[in-house]
């Protein structure tokens, strides 16, 4: 119980950090001003600088212009509220929960480009599930990158240690370095079934969406999991780096093509990047954002909160002005 409490308070403080970064939102700039073309351009600039992208920004700003010419919006703050409502409507609360199998084990496949935060996110998910009293098994399917297996092993060890006696362990299944990642996935699923583990999380090697053979390898990992456990993987999570720009759209599209992504985790949102690319992604796809990463420790995972996220999009800070 103490552990769970600790986790909760950490997440809360992590979120507070993100919220604080959002202080001085565009609101203060917009309040008390009439909504004219100059102001609309400022909003446009704010969206672009949040990585929302040119096309998605144009669509959003277009709807403000429309509402203004119809007389529905007249003041700066109206425009902001209008935009926020529009953005928040993009992410219904329904699809934010982790999808678990009716009968365990649940299999979660974690994928993404190099260095986006997959392995750390895997550890964070494991910590979260562990805090919910579930036993977790990590499959070290990154057999390629130097130190990748060891990294996951350290996490499994740390999570097991700190949970103390009686708490569910975090297992690890690994293969030979340079070995077939799909074989590791199979072994992990196999071990999960025989050990009666609740959730399997498969950490995969980073790969650029432009590398066809590696994308096919990922599909193979997924297929192998499905073969061993019918219905698996129950979640296919794409870890995106919040500092990524418009390339994130390509990543979302290509990874979805290859392995039917079921949810996005937006990592590294604790910096100054706004992660606005998920707005553009949402305009183009049905993939929901499920969690955000707000730090490097296992507790630094929070459910995606559209309200806080949208507020953050409009944060202006000195860095923006000084650039």
């Amino acid at each position, binding site marked *: 119980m103490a552990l769970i409490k600790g986790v909760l308070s950490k997440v809360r403080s992590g979120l507070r950090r993100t919220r604080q970064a959002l202080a001085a939102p565009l609101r203060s700039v917009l309040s008390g001003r009439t909504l004219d073309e100059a102001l609309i351009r400022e909003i446009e*600039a704010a969206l*672009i*600088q*949040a*990585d929302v*992208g*040119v*096309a998605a920004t144009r669509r959003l700003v277009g709807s403000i212009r429309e509402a203004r010419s119809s007389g529905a919006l007249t003041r700066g703050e109206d425009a902001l509220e209008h935009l926020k409502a529009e953005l928040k409507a993009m992410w219904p609360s329904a699809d934010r929960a982790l999808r678990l199998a009716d009968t365990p084990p649940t299999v979660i496949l974690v994928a993404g*480009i*190099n*260095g*986006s*935060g997959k392995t750390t996110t895997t550890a964070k998910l494991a910590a979260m599930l562990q805090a919910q009293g579930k036993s977790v098994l990590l499959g070290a399917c990154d057999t*390629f*990158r*130097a*130190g*990748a297996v*060891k*990294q996951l*092993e*350290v*996490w499994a060890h*740390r999570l097991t240690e700190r949970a103390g006696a009686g708490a569910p362990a975090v297992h690890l299944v690994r293969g030979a370095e340079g070995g077939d990642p799909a074989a590791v996935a199979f072994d992990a699923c196999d071990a999960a079934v025989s050990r009666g583990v609740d959730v399997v999380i498969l950490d995969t090697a*980073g790969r*650029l*969406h*432009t*590398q066809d053979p590696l994308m096919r390898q990922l599909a193979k990992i997924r297929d192998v999991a499905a073969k061993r456990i019918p219905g698996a993987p129950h979640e296919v999570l794409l870890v995106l*780096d919040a*500092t*990524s*720009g*418009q*390339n*994130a*759209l390509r990543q*979302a*599209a290509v990874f*979805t*093509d290859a392995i*039917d992504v079921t949810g996005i985790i937006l990592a*590294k949102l*604790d*910096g*100054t*990047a*706004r992660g*606005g*690319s998920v707005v553009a992604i949402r305009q*183009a*796809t*049905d*993939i929901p954002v499920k969690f955000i990463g707000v730090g*490097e*420790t296992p507790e630094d995972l929070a459910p995606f909160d559209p309200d806080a996220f949208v507020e953050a999009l409009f944060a202006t800070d000195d*860095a*923006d002005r*000084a*650039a």
Partner: protein
Amino acid sequence: MFDRIQDAIGGAYRALSGKGTISEANIRQAADDVRTALLEADANYQVVEAFCEEIVAEALGREVTRSLKPGQEFVGVVHRKLVELLSPPDGAEPGVVQVAPPPTVVMMCGLQGSGKTTTCAKLAAYLKKRGRSCLLVAADLQRPAAVDQLRTVAEQVERDAPGGARVLFYAEPDQVGAYGEAVGVAVGVCQRALKEALRERVDTVILDTAGRLHVNDELMGELERVHRAVRPHQTFLVVDAMTGQDAVHSAKAFHERLHVDGVVLTKFDSDTRGGAALSINRVTGAPIRFIGVGEKLDALEEFHAERIAGRILGMGDVVTLVEKAQEEVSEEEAAALQEKLARGEMTFDDFLKQLRAIRRMGPLKQVLGMLPGVGSALKDAQVDDKQLNRIEGIINSMTSAERRDPSLLTASRRRRIARGSASSQQEVNRLVKQFEAVSKMAKQMAGLGAIGKIKAVRQMQGQAQQLAAGGGFRPKAGTRTVSPKAGYKKRKAKRR
């Protein structure tokens, strides 16, 4: 990666061409296209605004040279500006500057996951190839297994990378702590590593530091202390080429605290448009020294502003293409081909060989973007093995005389070839058309100077478009025109 900018600038100078003078209106229109393209390429908003203002001012203040069309003039302005933006301010050489007496100390820094550790090893391989020994120092005591990662790649370089020099590794594994626990320890580790480097008489010391957020005061403070303690000769900021608008913020913060001497842009092998390259240079003034183009330890290239700017302008990054091609074709082969091309004597066999080489050279789009002239027209085309086999089939059904001289290909001969290769006559016609267009382009490009190339590119743009429109190269599904949403829905429907 700069394909979109190429598009826009191509569009801009198409719009401008034929008109006698550069007017404010058409310059603004062109600059607006450039602006959009740069923003879509993730260049920072403020940087783009400033850049566009400058090119407009410069273009307007310029007398149009009689011999050049205004469109060319504008391209010249944009090109010069881009090179200026991307070039080292002091005209510094690319690569690692060495100091005497050794060791030269190089410190890597950057955000989490940007590619620091990998780049350390790549740099070691780069130096080894040039006969310089180095010591890799594991100064990341935070990330789980960071030390093991560096040790592994250091051993790989020592064992497998070409070159004669030693590659040593320094770590103090017992100092490793969990996040937040080992802050500050890196200072001592680096100091002791430096002593080791002196004892071992290595040429270069490379410090791999932990990834950190530019807004994390504690960790940035640690980095400053390391910096003060070891006084690196070169501080390299390692940045992911896919970074968006935030690139300026992190780069600026690292630069202010450490004074960044050089930038390494990693993951350049992705299809990112790489506008971050423009942003970072502008806010730090630090030159981009290297680009990372893959996970392998030899995937590091020196950065050349001219090349990238050329790519931006759709002039084609000829140099890189030639270098890449050289990995595929032997030097004599390449020279022979070059001569043939210049004489307009390309054969169908050469054509096929070229297609195969392009196919092997990696993501086709990337290569096509570098091909002079054809880049913007063919960037969404995809040549897969199946198509290559069909093309090969058709060519195999030609006589050797026909392969050398397409003018022999009369309608009846084409019918025969179609039958022989089990393809349609349209397919044969299409291939011949493609061949002729490519052959003509190749001939024009061979042996042209820079200005000539700009001219030629403009002429070719029209031809290339026809070539693409003529088909043969299947437009790739799922690019830009088809929204991923549509694809997603389709699949969902299928599953039900």
